[in-house]
């Protein structure tokens, strides 16, 4: 985002060099590659959860603690945040800065609500006796959903940073790549949650 001569900033997000054979912003490619890698991170965690599913020797077991209606609400909030993310990017592309700021704040706000639900859920589960060290379900559940929670937290901080930065240095449609990569990350974290919600929560009640 530094002020570089015009020809060097033809493609936003470029840190070095000139010609780009794909004409794509480097940061966008980097984000796709990172997400491909992140698939394997979550894949390993979800795989571990599935391998250990039903192997806990003592309770509480999933059906004792999981609350589908509550988590459905938080899942819905997270999904709606992805919708706002699309609106924010659309507004920035159209140089509608007030709307871009509003929707970006909305994404972060909805993400924060989701995190609030998760904190409540964790505290509630600990009250019910489900701990990190208590049984395999606790170990795998907290590490998997906790890792996802860390991803959401980073996303919220990232989006709020974009929001603050848009006041420090006015953003325009030229900066769309920077919002788009945050959006790619955010959508990915959402999609991972859909998988986790299915594999951890819904499957127990089929």
């Amino acid at each position: 985002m530094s002020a570089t001569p015009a020809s060097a900033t033809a493609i936003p997000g470029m840190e070095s060099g000139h010609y780009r054979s794909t004409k794509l912003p480097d940061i966008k490619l980097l984000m796709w590659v990172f997400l491909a890698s992140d698939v394997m991170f979550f894949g390993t965690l979800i795989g571990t959860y599935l391998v250990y599913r039903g192997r806990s020797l003592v309770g509480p077991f999933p059906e004792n603690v999981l609350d589908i209606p509550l988590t459905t609400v938080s899942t819905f909030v997270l999904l709606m945040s992805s919708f706002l993310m699309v609106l924010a990017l659309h507004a920035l592309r159209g140089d509608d800065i007030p709307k871009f700021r509003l929707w970006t704040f909305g994404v972060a706000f909805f993400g924060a609500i989701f995190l609030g639900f998760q904190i409540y859920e964790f505290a509630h589960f600990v009250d019910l006796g489900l701990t990190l060290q208590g049984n395999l379900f606790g170990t795998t559940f907290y590490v998997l959903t906790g890792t996802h929670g860390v991803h959401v937290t980073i996303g919220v901080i990232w989006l709020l940073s974009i929001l603050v930065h848009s006041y420090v240095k006015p953003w325009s449609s030229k900066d769309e790549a920077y919002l788009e990569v945050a959006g790619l990350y955010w959508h990915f974290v959402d999609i991972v949650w859909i998988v986790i919600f299915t594999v951890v929560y819904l499957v127990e009640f089929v």
Partner: protein
Amino acid sequence: MAVSKVTIPAPTSGVFTRPTSETGILSWLTTVDHKRLGLLYIFTSFLFMGAASVEAFLIRLQLAAPGNTLLSPDVYNQMFTMHGVTMVFLAIMPLGIGFANYFVPLQIGARDLAFPRLNAFGYWVYAAGGLFLYTSFFLGSPPDVGWVAYAPLTSLSNNPGNGTDFYMIGLLVGGIGTLVTAMNLIVTIVSMRAPGMTMMRVPVFTWMMLVTSFLIIFAFPPLTIALFQVIMDRTFGTLFYVPAAGGMPILWQHLFWIFGHPEVYIIVLPAFGVISEVIPAFSRKPLFGYPVVILSGIFIGFMGFAVWSHHMFTTGLGPVVNTAFALTSFVIGIPTGIKVFNWLGTIWGGRVRFTTSMLYAIAFLITFVMGGITGIMLAVPPFDAQSHDTYFVVAHFHYVMGGGALLAFFAGLYYWFPKMSGRLMDERIGKAAFWFLVPGLHLIFFPQHIAGLMGMPRRTQTYVAGIGLELPNLLSTAGTFVMLVGLVLLLVNILHGIARGKPAGDDPWDARTLEWSTSSPPPHHDFDRQPVVNDRDAHWVQKYPESVHGERVPASASEPYDRAGIHLPGQSIYPFFMAMSLLVFSYGLLFHNFWVVGLSVALIFFFTYAWALEGVGGHHLQAGGGHGPSDGEEARA
């Protein structure tokens, strides 16, 4: 060439003044130049290789005679663990990445990697991870669980010292560096190829680095999560690998080898790439069957994820699983064999020059094929059942890693040294070193096949006399002395080359790829003009346009950079600070000091913002004397 500097005004939000010194220690700490970082990678990997060689030497001295007591069993365990971890993670793999750092941008006509600061971060994290691992000698005990660190040996109750924590945290942190560098290389190779360089014109070394980078981004996450799980078990009392609570230690083996087998190709595919550069250059022929070599590399990359259980034939996965993985392991031998025939086909009918580099390439072919054949033997489950965890396996993977990857990298070192230093290495010392090093290597590892077939178990501190193991072990130990002479001569040759090697000129080997079209060593900005590529072997076509297809084709050329000139990104201290914050984090986690962990997380947070707000910065070089500000003017916060 007359160039002048145009400084890009830095954003006003930087925390520190942006470093700009071009000499001295600060310039190396803050460098973002791929060539300097490549040299740092190569230098650091040689340091770690030296440490690993000392460990290997001690192992061989201990095993020279039956019943020897030079090393206690505990120290012996530490030595073979550190030797394996060092060679795999800190020596051979970073050596390939170092060559990639230096030569991928040059081979594709790019100015740098796509993210120069991220590249610096990758190097410093690797260095920090290695440093962290080696401080275990002073701050507790080195890891002693083998480089595979199987659960439940690594549980707190079975292994109460902090050696396992050093292993887990060190590899976790070092892995971050490898991951970001691989991502950086993918973006670079996909997006920064010079005009006209289609994927099927990309030099083979760069192609193999692309495949390797994809292997890294898919293979390291399972390892990272497995390490994370053991760290959680040991630090916070989770139950991932606690059998008493229902945990399954075999899960570690699966996760480790889902990483571990691709890791073999992460190490050896760059070596294949080097060989595919060296052999055509010294045979004065284009690589025989270029598309087949590329496709074989891609196929190896895919199949690399489908063979991991052949490391686990003896764990009782059942005949169906064993058969399936035996078949996939046979199949992966096919593309490797194809490549060997392509290299032979390149030499065939060529005007071969037996330089030291070419000698190493030929030694690679012979040694690697021998390692490949024992690999096929080990892929047969009944044979594996007999030879599992014996010295036969040790011999096999040292033929592949040492005889394969390392010899190929030595070929690459002799091949590229003139480009990196501007000077030639001495051929007489080089050949003398070769004739100690390669026979020494075979003398060390060939007898281990026999010791293994006679039943000598690996990772065991000693053996009894009278069961026929004395001779192979004595020969093996004798071989280390022979190889040591070769390694010392190699080091002498490197130092001699740097100090008083003959000037190399831009293209001493009359080679084929773009890195030889710029000066030796290349200027900071790499190319004076933007290379434009019209064929494979772009530099060769530029030199000998009539030699391709027997007729004149449009020569590959170059064109001036656009009017903004050549962009050189600004130096930055934040990659280094960020890596040091991760080092602080590692020690905090190791000593269970969560104030330090909190502090390091705060530092990481702070440096992330400083990094982002600092921007790319730097300056532009204007070819032919532009009218920018004078040289002394620097970007300031």
